[in-house]
């Protein structure tokens, strides 16, 4: 195959292309995933804590 007789060699020739293709597919599928930064996490915590305070204030009728 491909002018190469040893299947261990033409196999790895194709396998190298396939592994690069795997990287491309993974990158495309997950292109927009995992965008949360540490700053976003801190902001989320602050918003969540503010919400907690508001809830408590409502419960206390303030």
């Amino acid at each position, binding site marked *: 195959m491909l*002018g190469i007789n*040893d299947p*261990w060699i033409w196999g790895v020739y194709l396998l190298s292309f396939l*592994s690069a293709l795997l*990287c491309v597919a*993974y*990158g495309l599928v997950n292109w927009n995933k995992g*965008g*949360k930064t540490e700053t976003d996490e801190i902001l989320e915590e602050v918003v969540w804590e503010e919400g907690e305070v508001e809830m408590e204030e409502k419960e206390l009728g303030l």
Partner: protein
Amino acid sequence: MDIILLNIIILVYVLAIGYLGYKGWRETKDSEDYMVAGRKIHPYVMAMSYGATFISTSAIVGFGGVAGLFGMGLLWLTFLNIFVGIFIAFVLFGKRTRKMGHNLGAMTFSELLAKRFDSKFIQYFSGLVIFLGMPMYASVVLIGAARFIETTLAIDFDIALLLFSIIIAAYVVLGGLKGVMYTDAMQATIMFVGMAFLLLMTYSQLGGVVPAHQALTDLASLVPANLASMGHEGWTSMPASGSAWWWTLISTLVLGVGIGALAMPQLVVRFMTVKSSRELNRAVLIGGVFILMMTGVAFVVGALSNVYFVQQDGVISIAAAQGNADSIIPIFINSAMPDWFVYVFMLSLLAAGMSTLSSQFHAQGTAIGRDVYETITGMRGGRSILITRVGIILAVILAVILGYILPGSIIARGTAIFFGLCASAFLSMYGCALFWKRATKAGAIAGLVVGTFVSLFWLVFVHQKEAAALGIAKMVLGRDVLITSMPWPVVDPIVVALPLAFVATVAVSLATQPPAPEHLEKCFKGIK
């Protein structure tokens, strides 16, 4: 060859590097900028910088030359470089490294491990392994670039080595990791273009993909008798299973470098330079294609150079290079390719050498400044950056001195030694740090020490090539190697040291008290 045109091209290239180094220097305000590029690097810059650091003149000239000797079996390293060095490294290791590095405020690979296991010993011991081990790797990359400059520009090898080092030292010392990564991205782009042209031109010159491979397959009868007796069965066949040639190909060249990439300090630190996992997802795409175009092309062209030399001169590549595998690719490019391509490739190799060396020097500088000096003295801030800069200059001097004294055909071997040492010393500790909460400080130290010393012992007393060259075993034991029965003299240290390091890490961890839950919570915050 038009030397004036070539010099103009190189001058423009050096000016572009100067500008990017200056840009890095302008944007560097504090030690976080200097050491982890402010943790806000663009995914293209990160991926190309990772790739350009990973792939050096060692991969192209050194391993390309080795492919001229061993044949296409070396493509197993290309597969591992992509699947392990990019996919596994980014998807499994990279995301956890980025998050844990941020949680712990770590700025170097050693510091990440030290803070995860709450151990100063880990930080300065790892820092010393990096600072003392990396000059070997840096010097062979330097040799790769200087050999090509010598062949192409007819500049004396010693002068080429020195000039090349001074240019790199200037922008690393000033620009920090930002300067390094900006220049890396530009250099990687040049490398990609150069290697794409090289692949197309080699195949077209040899009549296309299948005819070129067929011609190489038909050369099997030309394998020299001494190589055939060691297991060489042709350039499109794997060596005879279990032979000395097979063990060297599989254990040293493929496993040593293929697995070792996971624990390379200058690569791991790249994961800590991006602001979220999304950048790493995008970088996987760019990195996979880039590595295929680098090592895949270098190894295929290296093997196919045999067809060219047999057709032109009636001799195989290693004979055309007068026995020095490091000269196969430079001689092939200079004799088989048109002048304009020699210029393009010259630039690609300069880029490959510079991008890897700059990261090596930066990693060595931070190892001595952050990991050793800060850990031992407790001093931080501006003085630490000064010590880091002094460390970088020391690293350059060490690499240049080694570059002058190392022998021929050393590039691939020197690279494999350092990759293998890093895997043996760091991989068990690094893997357990990210994936096993039960791993303890004592377990991590056990893995680090066992991996380092077993690896060094094996190099000095058992692995034929290094043991015989060093002569320590001969002095102590009266013979070249401790174990003379096959295959041990050709089994790479990583095959023995890495499993032993893992066993030590796990066994000692299970025998000692688990880490405090509060500490683990801090380390693994946000890691699923």
